């Protein structure tokens, strides 16, 4: 089997497993997996910027929030249907990433982290401040009647699962194709050595901007899906925490791996979910687990696997 075929086979098998999960998983885990797939889509977008292009952003909550509120506001205040709202969310995430990128990409490294953090903080405060539109910290509920896509009721378990699956699958396939394409190679080259890439004739600014916009589109789509699938649009989902979470998921799963963000998000979700069964000090379990993981798999789970055994893993 050629390397390409092996890679596609692995990822399509993973998708097939998830599709089967829609039928096999019990109700509780069905909803959990739906959420994890939406969040993993967000994290995959983050990984395109961070894991592949080397852009350590601390402001992705702004793009996720743009998708969330882009879709949510349209439904709430303009009575839009789920389809147009989802598209609006997608575009809002991309547009926001474009605007932020135009400015923030003039900086690098730590300055880039802080600039993106500050933009996202300004966005978060704006959401809190405009209570009349957003209900600020409380957030708003998206009416069930609006949560219908192509005749499917997104508030019901199965349609929700498969809507999340469709989003995740599209994101995964697109990402796998992207990172293995020549453009993906350039993104990786920029991560590895920007100056060298420039001297091969690539425009780092434009390429990074493109990567960030793609990343923002993922975040926007995931944000819109979150609102429509789970019915809640709130400021806490656009707070700094939601900028750090995708970073954490990506690092846990393995930065610069296609499946890593999903693995990281899934692991983190169930770590929090099950830690409460062990002790009331659940934060301690999470904290210790993170420290142990990073000690024994410093490149993340898939990153460490790749380093040790599966060198072909994209």
């Amino acid at each position, binding site marked *: 089997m050629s390397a390409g075929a092996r890679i596609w086979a692995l990822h399509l098998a993973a998708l097939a497993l998830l599709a089967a999960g829609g039928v096999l998983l019990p109700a509780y885990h069905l909803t959990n997996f739906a959420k994890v797939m939406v969040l993993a889509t967000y994290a995959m977008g983050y990984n395109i910027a961070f894991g592949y292009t080397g852009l350590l952003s601390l402001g992705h909550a702004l793009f996720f929030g743009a998708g969330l509120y882009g879709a949510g506001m349209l439904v709430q205040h303009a009575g839009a249907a789920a389809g147009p709202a989802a598209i609006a969310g997608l575009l809002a995430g991309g547009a926001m990433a474009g605007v932020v990128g135009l*400015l923030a990409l003039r900086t690098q490294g*730590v300055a880039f982290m802080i600039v993106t953090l500050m933009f996202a903080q300004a966005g978060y405060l704006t959401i809190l401040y405009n209570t009349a539109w957003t209900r600020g910290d409380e957030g708003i509920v998206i009416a069930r009647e609006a949560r219908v896509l192509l005749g499917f009721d997104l508030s019901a378990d199965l349609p929700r699962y498969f809507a999340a699956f469709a989003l995740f699958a599209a994101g995964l396939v697109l990402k796998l194709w992207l990172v293995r394409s020549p453009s993906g190679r350039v993104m990786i080259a920029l991560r590895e050595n920007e100056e060298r890439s420039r001297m091969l004739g690539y425009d780092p600014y434009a390429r990074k901007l493109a990567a960030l916009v793609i990343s923002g589109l993922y975040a926007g789509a995931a944000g819109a899906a979150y609102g429509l699938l789970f019915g809640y649009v709130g400021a806490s989902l656009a707070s700094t925490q939601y900028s750090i979470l995708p970073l954490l998921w990506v690092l846990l799963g393995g930065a610069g791996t296609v499946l890593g963000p999903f693995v990281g998000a899934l692991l983190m979700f169930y770590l929090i979910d099950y830690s409460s069964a062990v002790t009331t000090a659940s934060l301690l379990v999470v904290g210790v687990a993170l420290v142990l993981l*990073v000690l024994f798999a410093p490149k993340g789970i898939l990153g460490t696997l790749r380093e040790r055994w599966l060198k072909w893993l994209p």
Partner: protein
Amino acid sequence: MSFGPFLLLALMEGMVTSAVLALAAVGLSLVFGIMRVVNVAHGEFFMLGAVSAWFVSQWVPGPPVVGFAAALILCPLFVGAIAALADMTVLKRLNYEPEATIVATIGLLYILQQAALSLYGPDARPVPAPFNLRVQLPWFGYSGYKIAVVAASAVVLLGVWRLLAKSRVGLVMRATQYDRETARAFGINVDRVYAGVFALGGGLAALAAVLIVPIQQAHYLMGTDPLLLSFIVVIIGGLGSLRGTVIAALLIGLSDGVISTFFAPTLAKIVATLAVALVLVFRPQGLFGRRAL
């Protein structure tokens, strides 16, 4: 109140904010500058300082000033020891790999928060100030302790500056900052320097917290805001520049004090946040950094 006193009050408040910011940021700046470690748990060291100050104030009998003095000494030592332990058991083993240290310090953040929640509880608790002096100005009253915090902050910063610029310890630190491998070649025990710097960073955060806790109360979630603000101050000031850190703290503290006094405060905060971002966009090395980041 007429404009003059109004501005005076805004400036005084700005000074206090600046002092608090500079203190919280200076430890981060050291760790960041010398070790190149993005310590997400820095705010939790700050929180631990405040929480442990509460415990000390409960245990030490006598007037508040005695407990406060004890806390000033014990809390930084305690937190510094925890920081050194974290460095030696975790960060060192990660070889200070930037990405791994981010995850590890996020883990540390959770552990410390849970420890505080379990041992200290979820309530905000006040620690008595060492003295209660209310300075009555012709137009308004003001806390004497707040003025003392500004002075104490200046003393601490001066001490850190002397340590870095004039002492042998500082020389070793700067050598390590400049080039880790060369420092090793010159017989400097880099591991020990790193543990020491991390402990010093944590201890300074704790010291800042002990000074601040009489005006802010100890709470197990109090570490988040100082972390973000400290980062901003450190970056705006320019990496590794103590002078820059202090000036950035003054700039941000004073402008925040004045802007939010005279304009719609939340809107002002949004605008100020964007302004900080734009400063960095057009001067990414910070205001006083010499080299590009």
